[in-house]
């Protein structure tokens, strides 16, 4: 009898140790899976057998905020949608790659940023579902270049386009008036139409009239981004070779953007840093290149004092900055339902809603004619007809050649090269050399 109790106590202890060990182990390994079916298993006390779909996004993606998930769940009572978000794509993307590599920890739908889509399509297509034949997907709805960006050579389309980033120039009317520049958005657009150097010229006029105080533009990097966004060949050529060093379009963009820095026209800020936000709040610069998705950001940061001071005009040349795709990983548990949801989320009507609520401009050209886009006006930006301004920019944007390392090249050009010129007073050549050195090091495997 004594033996039995001691024995069983011992067994219980061992069992506890084992359970603790395996429990922790499985707890770690199953992190991702639990995220997707945890709520189903948890049960919510006798609720029906709902399928939980998870959507992994970066930043303020807007699908949830625009109420699209709620609308879909209303249409499909058996579906529950959960979203996980990581603030910055630089953190989101490597995690997505490791999860794809290990086939675990993935959401049922994963968003991919446009600067990563070439790499995803080229290297990860085997781990993603072909969405071209998914129910509800209509190839004809999308801008042709947007569709082809996520399509592999063997004709599998692994990502459905959500938004694009047609770019305008947002400007402050009060500061323009102070500098004797026109304040009407059509006149402002005409001021620099067709040539980025006219934008630079406007900056010089601004500086001459307002020698101290607010700067003309937030950052030279922002200028560089929007100029490179307006040319078809950028960092890669059609053969997939890295050509940014010899590409005259990039050289010219570099020259123009560094001129902004050299002439003291910039507020020397780094975009998406707290200081940039403070710049919006304190009106320390008069213009910023603004893709459609940035309007909401400006409204948030500039706040009530900026209302009716900010307006938006056409950019010198049609340019694109940003945009995203939705993919469905093959390792997911509910691939069919996820594909259906992705198709619904990217359908023209939903893209129009996303634009109406969040300002993300549709990549489905079928949406441009819908009243939600065609008649859209932005109250904060003086009632600017943003639907028309950005549709014009989107249609005029050249079909851009994307490469797998676009993001790294661009980031080093702006965050290393341009910042050295702008903030550390290096010459344009020194900045360029520093950026090239960093890019060479980054591309070397």
């Amino acid at each position: 009898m004594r033996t039995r109790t001691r024995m069983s106590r011992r067994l219980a202890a061992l069992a506890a140790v084992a359970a603790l060990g395996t429990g922790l182990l499985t707890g770690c390994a199953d992190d991702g899976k639990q995220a997707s079916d945890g709520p189903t298993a948890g049960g919510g006390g006798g609720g029906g057998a709902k399928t939980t779909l998870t959507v992994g996004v970066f930043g303020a993606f807007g699908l949830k905020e625009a109420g699209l998930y709620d609308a879909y769940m209303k249409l499909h009572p058996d579906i529950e949608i959960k979203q996980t978000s990581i603030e910055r794509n630089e953190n989101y993307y490597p995690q997505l790659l490791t999860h794809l590599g290990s086939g675990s920890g993935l959401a049922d739908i994963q968003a991919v940023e446009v600067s990563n889509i070439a790499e995803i399509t080229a290297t990860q297509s085997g781990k993603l579902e072909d969405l071209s034949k998914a129910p509800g997907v209509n190839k004809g709805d999308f801008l042709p270049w947007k569709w082809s960006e996520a399509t592999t050579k063997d004709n599998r389309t692994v990502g459905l386009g959500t938004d694009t980033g047609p770019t305008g120039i947002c400007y402050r009317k009060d500061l323009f008036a102070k500098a004797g520049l026109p304040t009407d958005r059509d006149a402002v657009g005409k001021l620099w139409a067709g040539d980025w150097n006219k934008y630079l010229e406007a900056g010089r006029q601004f500086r001459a009239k307002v020698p101290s105080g607010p700067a003309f533009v937030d950052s030279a990097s922002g200028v560089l981004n929007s100029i490179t966004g307006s040319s078809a060949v950028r960092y890669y050529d059609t053969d997939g070779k890295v050509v940014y060093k010899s590409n005259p379009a990039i050289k010219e963009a570099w020259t123009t953007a560094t001129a902004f820095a050299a002439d003291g026209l910039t507020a020397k800020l780094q975009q998406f840093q707290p200081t940039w936000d403070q710049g919006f709040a304190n009106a320390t610069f008069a213009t910023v290149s603004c893709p459609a998705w940035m309007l909401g950001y400006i409204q948030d940061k500039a706040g009530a004092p900026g209302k009716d001071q900010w307006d938006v005009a056409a950019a010198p040349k049609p340019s694109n900055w940003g945009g995203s795709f939705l993919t469905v990983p093959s390792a997911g548990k509910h691939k069919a339902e996820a594909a259906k949801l992705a198709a619904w989320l990217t359908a023209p009507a939903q893209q129009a809603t996303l634009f109406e609520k969040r300002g993300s401009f549709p990549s489905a050209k079928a949406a441009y004619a819908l009243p939600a886009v065609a008649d859209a006006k932005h109250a904060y930006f003086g009632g600017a007809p943003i639907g028309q301004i950005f549709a014009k920019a989107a249609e005029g944007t050249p079909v851009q050649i994307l490469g797998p390392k676009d993001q790294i090249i661009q980031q080093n050009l702006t965050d290393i090269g341009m910042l050295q010129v702008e903030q550390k007073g290096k010459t344009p050549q020194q900045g360029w050399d520093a950026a090239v050195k960093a890019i060479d090091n980054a591309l070397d495997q």
Partner: protein
Amino acid sequence: MASDTTAAVPSPTPGQESTAPGRADADERRSRRYRRDTRWSPYAFIAPFFVFFAVFGLFPLLYTGWASLHQVELTAPNDMTWVGLRNFSRLLSDDFFWNALRNTFTIGLLSTVPQLLIALGVAHLLNYKLRGSMFFRVAVLTPYATSVAAATLVFVLLFGRDYGMINWALGLVGFGHVDWQNGTWTSQLAVSTIVVWRWTGYNALIYLAAMQAVPADLYESAALDGASRWQQFRHVTIPSLRPTILFTAVVSTIGATQLFGEPLLFNGAAGATGGSDHQFQTLGLYLYEQGWVNLHLGRASAIAWAMFLILLLIGAVNWLVSRKLRKGMTS
């Protein structure tokens, strides 16, 4: 103990075992089980740690070593090409690596030395008889309990160029604005400040614990000999704390070598470059940039192993120093 019991119990012959179910037999089985228990149970109880260490410590270490000998990308981790020691040899001519190593060293120095000196002072003050001493002891530990992310974001605002509080204060006393993030020394100083702020209290509590173990009669006899507070601190406290000081120095050095979160978040938007001129990119940041921004797993693994070797080197130096110190103490 176990062998005693076996000797006391008459052992049955092998043939009898099944046919004679006596008391002796049960006792025998029980004692054998008991022996097995005392012998193997401790292993079962410590097993979880070693299982975890093998899975999450040893395996990654070895796998990283294996990956460092290959050209391998994060986009295709299973697709490895053998390159031997090339990832290591190229570090020798990699300006960014040396720059990161230099920055790690200077930031480490700028943070570790003041940190330990301040901690020593704070611990000495806490060691006095104070009203509400528990409150102060908990208070010095609060920075340590703050998350790196939250603390760093606050410091980024404090060190802001245009609207930062430190520049505002400098302006009040007549100095110009400092562009903290862009200067080499200013940015390193700012990053070090965050480290000092976070870890000083932690080290102070370790010192305090060691101080309280110093026998009170040492102080009493020192006081009888007419030693002042400061003399007591120098000639009684410091020598008694020597092993503790050494311990904190080693731990802080390891922490400084692996410094990552503070410099990463100090340049929030730009990722792992550590400033436009890489002016505060530490080894940890460079490792992260190679692996998770540029997606070169092989090169990142080589940097990780280089860091590991550097730490071993520091460990060896520390061992030599501590041996010398111990000899100095006994002689």
